[in-house]
Every structure is written in C-alpha cells, then in structure tokens.
C-alpha cells in the first residue's frame, strides 16, 4: 500500500512539472494555431537567464524567476514581430520549418554564450532538502512544482474563459477577419498571447530545471514530450492538458517502477491508444 501511495505522489509531481512546461505550447498550438517547435528553446532561455541571475549575479530565486520570465518575453518580442507574424495561418510545414530553424539558432547561440556544460539554478533554503510525509520523503521543490502547476492552471483558465481579453482571443482564433471587423485588434491579441505562452515556457524551464537540467540541447531533447502532452490533452484546452499530464505522469511513473526494462513502451502505448480513440486529444476543440 505504501508503495502505491509512493508511486502516486511521484506521478503527481512528475505530471505537474510536465504541465507547467507544456501548457505554453498548448496555448500557442491550440489558440494561435502555430506549431511552435521552438517552445523548448524558450523554456531553455528562461532556465539560462534564471541560472545566470541566481548563480552568477547572486540574486534570490524569486527575482531570478521573474527575470527569467520577463527576460524571455523581451527576447521573444522581436522574434514574434519579425518571424512568427509571417507564419500565422501559414501551412503547418512552413511553421515547422521556421520554428525548428529558430530552435537550432537558439541552441547554437546558447552553446556559444554559456558553453556546453550543465547549468543549475540554486534553490532557496526553503525549497532545498526534502519533506517527510510520514511514509516517505519527497523533495520540497516537487511540492513547489505541484503548487506552481495548480496556480498556473487556475490563472490561465480564468484568463481565457473569464476575462474580456480571453473573449477577444477566442474570437480572433475562431474567425480572425470577423473579429477584426468588429474592432478587435488581432495583432495585439496575438502578440499578448504569444508573450503569455513564452512566459509560461520560461517559468516551466525554471521550475522544471531540477528534473530536466538546463543545457544547450534541452530545446531538442524534450521536444517530443511536450508535443505528446499537447496531442493527448487536446491543443488549447487547459483541463485537457492537466488531465493528460497527470495521466501520462501516472503511466510513465508506474511503468518505470514495475518494468523499467520496457523503457517508455507503456508511455507511448498509452499515447497511441488515446490518440486513436480521441483524435483531437482528450479535450480537443472541434474545428
């Protein structure tokens, strides 16, 4: 019984970390209809900025996270203005080629600037070490990651479903021309959503850094995992992404405990089954 609880907790923690990192991609792919393969690259930029701020400048964890999120958004603004704006509404292949190209450029620049070695983000005293749950101990930063995931999910849901901006965003996604005719400045709406998505990527890069350490190939290494979460959850759906992360986290963690030699077999088997039964993901929006 203890073991079952233990696995459940690991699964929850892993799923929430996945959620924080992948939700930004769900926003760009589902709401903005851009296949953004550079999502991991933005998460990596966030990780590097936080690492630089906390390790080399000696700033606190909270400030470093803030710098990472804002810094990544500032870096992303010209990229959005000059590159992404051209591919809104373009065929998927064009988007894939453009964003994978951006990814490779960012990998090269990161390698040049920060070198090929691993970078860590020092945790504050309160997040270090582990908390005792009675039957086992769990790293404190994992609890922090779970909370971050819940906060992000709630805030994003409120932002998209309950604010005026969310309404404009959904209108612009469904019919850009009509929304524009009604006075919605779609360019601004897209730019803001893109900034939010990139900011979430950066946050995920920082919060998930303990599990997925920051190094130049981060952007490519975990790309498939992010895409799988979006595909299973249904692009653009926050509850869908949350359920997908928890489900995949549970399957992956249990599989790794019971039969590690099968590798990611169970993970991908589950992906295949879910996508076969729900081609648009667990909570995908119909076109």
């Amino acid at each position, binding site marked *: 019984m203890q*073991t079952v609880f233990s696995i459940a907790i*690991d699964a929850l923690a892993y799923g929430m970390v996945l959620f924080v990192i992948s939700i930004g991609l769900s926003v760009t792919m589902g709401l903005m209809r851009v296949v953004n393969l550079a999502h991991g690259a933005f998460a990596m930029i966030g990780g590097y900025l936080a690492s630089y701020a906390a390790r080399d400048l000696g700033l606190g964890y909270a400030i470093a996270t803030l710098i990472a999120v804002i810094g990544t958004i500032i870096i992303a603004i010209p990229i959005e203005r000059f590159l992404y704006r051209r591919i809104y509404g373009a065929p998927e292949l064009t988007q894939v080629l453009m964003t994978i190209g951006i990814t490779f450029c960012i990998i090269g620049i990161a390698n040049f600037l920060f*070198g090929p070695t*691993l970078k860590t983000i020092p945790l504050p005293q309160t997040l270090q070490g*582990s908390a005792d749950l009675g039957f086992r101990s769990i790293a404190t930063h994992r609890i922090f990651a779970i909370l971050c995931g819940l906060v992000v999910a709630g805030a994003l849901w409120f932002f998209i479903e309950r604010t005026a901006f969310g309404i404009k965003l959904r209108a612009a996604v469904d019919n850009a021309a009509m929304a524009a005719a009604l006075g919605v400045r779609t360019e601004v709406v897209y730019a803001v959503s893109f900034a939010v998505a990139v900011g979430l990527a950066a946050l995920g890069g920082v919060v998930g850094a303990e599990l997925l350490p920051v190094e*130049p190939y981060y952007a490519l290494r975990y790309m498939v995992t992010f895409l799988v979460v979006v595909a299973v959850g249904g692009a653009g759906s926050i509850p869908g992404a949350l359920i997908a992360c928890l489900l995949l986290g549970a399957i992956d*963690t249990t599989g*790794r*405990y019971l039969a590690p030699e099968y590798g*990611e077999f169970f993970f991908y088997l589950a992906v295949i089954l879910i996508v076969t039964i729900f081609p648009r993901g667990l909570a995908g929006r119909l076109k």
Partner: protein
Amino acid sequence: MKRLVAAAIAAAVLSSAAYADTIKVGVVGPFSGPFALQGKNFKAGIDAYFAINGNKVGDDEIEVIYRDVPQADPAQSKALAQELVVREGVQYLAGFYFTPDAMAATPLLEQANVPMVIMNAATSAIVTASPYVVRTSFTTWQTSSPIAKVAKDGGVTKVISVVSDYGPGIDAENAFKTAFEKEGGTVVEAIRMPLSTNDFSPIMQRVRDSGAEAIFAFLPSGPTTLGFVKAFNENGLKGAGIKFFGPGDFTQESDLPALGDAGLGLQTTFHYSVSHDSPENKTFVEAAAKAIGNPAELSFPSVGAFDGMYVISKMIEATGGEQDAEKAVEAVKGLSWTSPRGPVTIDPESRHITQNIYLREVVKDADGKYINKEVQTFEKQGDPGLAFVKK
C-alpha cells in the same frame, strides 16, 4: 624500361630518406553537438602534447586533421575514416569517442596499412576487431570492477545494480556483478532503465523496496547523472544510509560544479582524475587547461588523447616515418611510460592500456572547487572484460 623503373625506385627511396616528411594523423571525434565537450577534450589533450613535446619526431612533423562525428554514427565515422586515409593520406587514425564509431572503422585498417589509436571508446571488444587497434583510454570493465572490492571492504553484501540500458551500461552491470560475486556478495536485483529517463524517483523507490545496502549505478556522463544523484539524495536513500557506488563517468570533473553539494561524498573508481597529484599531471593540466580555455571543462578524454599522441609519436619513431602499420603496432606492444594518470603499459597481448584504477571521493578542495580526491589505488589493472569477450 628497366633503367627507368630503377631510376623511379631510386628517386622514391631518395626522396623519402632525404626530406623531412609531414606525417598526418586523422582524429575522429564529436567536435560539435551534444558531446562537443568531449571532442574539445580530445583536442585539448593533443594540443597539450604538442605544447609540451613539440610536434616533431626526428625530422618528421606531425600534422593532425580533425573530423567531426557529432553523435554515435558508425556509417559517417567509417566514411570519414576512409576519406582521411584515401584523400588526406593519413598514416594514423585516432580519437573515437563512441564504440560503434570505432568498430565501424576497424575493417579499413589492414587494407589501408594504418594503425588506430583509440582515445576513448570503452567497450572491451574493440581491440579484438583488428590487430592494428591500440587503446590508451580505459574500458568500463576496467573501471567498474575494482569498486566491487571497495563495496565488500565496506561491509556491504547486498547490492542493487541500476544502469542505463545500452552497451556500456550492460558492460558495467556485468563487470560489477562478476567482480562482486567473486568477492562473495550478491546482486539482489539488476535494473536497466532507458537512456531517456528523466525522473528517477520510481527507480529510487524500487531501490528502497529491494532491501539492498548499496546501489551500484552507471549512466553516461551528462545531464541525467545530475538528476540521478539528486533523486538519490532527495528520496531519502542517502539519509537511510544506502551507499552509492559507480565508475567515474558519474563524477567527471566538468559535471561536478553542477552536482554541487549533492555530489559530496560520492565514491567512484576511475583511471584518471584531473586532481591527480604528480609532477607529470601538473605539467599536463597546465598545458591542457590553456588549450581548452576554460579549466573547468577539462575531463578524462583529454588524458586518453594526450597518451594517444605519445603512443603515435613512438610509432613514428619506430618506423622512421614510413607507413608500416605492423611495425608501428609491434613497437608499442609492452611500451611503458609515466602518464599524467600514473604508470601505464600497453599490454602486448590485448594492446589495451594497463593502468592504476583509483578510488576517489568527491570533496571540496581548499579553493572551494569540487574535485575527485583519490583515496585508494588499485595497481596495474588490466581489462577483465576481455576474458568475457573471448568466451
């Protein structure tokens, strides 16, 4: 006609004898991509050799030509090795970070009359692939076996083995198991996990459930080792007194700053630590650190490359700069010298390097830098994996 041939031969003989030659050495390694750091270390070791010893052997000058294979890619490695031999006319092939890359190039050696000096690839079987292969690095068997004795001496009898599911990982598992059972211990469970594993918490749970007193682990150097060690600490295994053993790939010097305090106290066995205390190593580290630029990036492949160049220079000396692979390899069989890592010998039978394996512990030195401090020496270790290959 006869006279013409005689003249031609005379001219050929004269020209090779009278003029100093440039001897080309082709080095294949990962110089870009995720493993660029290891390739950089190859280059640093070679540059350090030239900085200390010069690039001349007698009248002949050594010229190194680099070819990049970013990730393990046997087909590309073979194509590049062929190009080096045919187009560039190299007399020696060297480098090779990954085993499949080295294996793919071995069929060329005999036909091309070219010896191969392996500066890293660590699977035992490579030296059996061709009589012209000489290795100056280590094998996973060689570095993983001594830790079994360390575990036994520490009073541990039940160990769980956890390795990445790929060639060297399985080598490490077999090496440890063989050596540990010889010492009278038992491996209670052997887990192989996929290379792409990021979250090690479930593995740690299994380690805890297995009731083992210690864990033997092997993962390739790089991002995953960090996650593994952290998971070990944070899931309370370190606190529960479970000991951690592994070969030194875990604590390569360039990963230590990222591991930080989480790495303190880790015991690993390996053939080289950058902090090895000897005059030879001091000279080497000084030159290699200069060559690589950032001393924190210096790691074990550099010493394999450094000694590889030493072996090649001895080969050139023995052949007088002529292309004669058999004579070259024959000349270095049984060759002994003092490497930056300590006393070494090329075993005449296997052509693999016999060397000291050190038990090291990660500590903070006086400057607050994390180092692998050598605490015990296992002298003159050969490659126990070779017996396994022949069986």
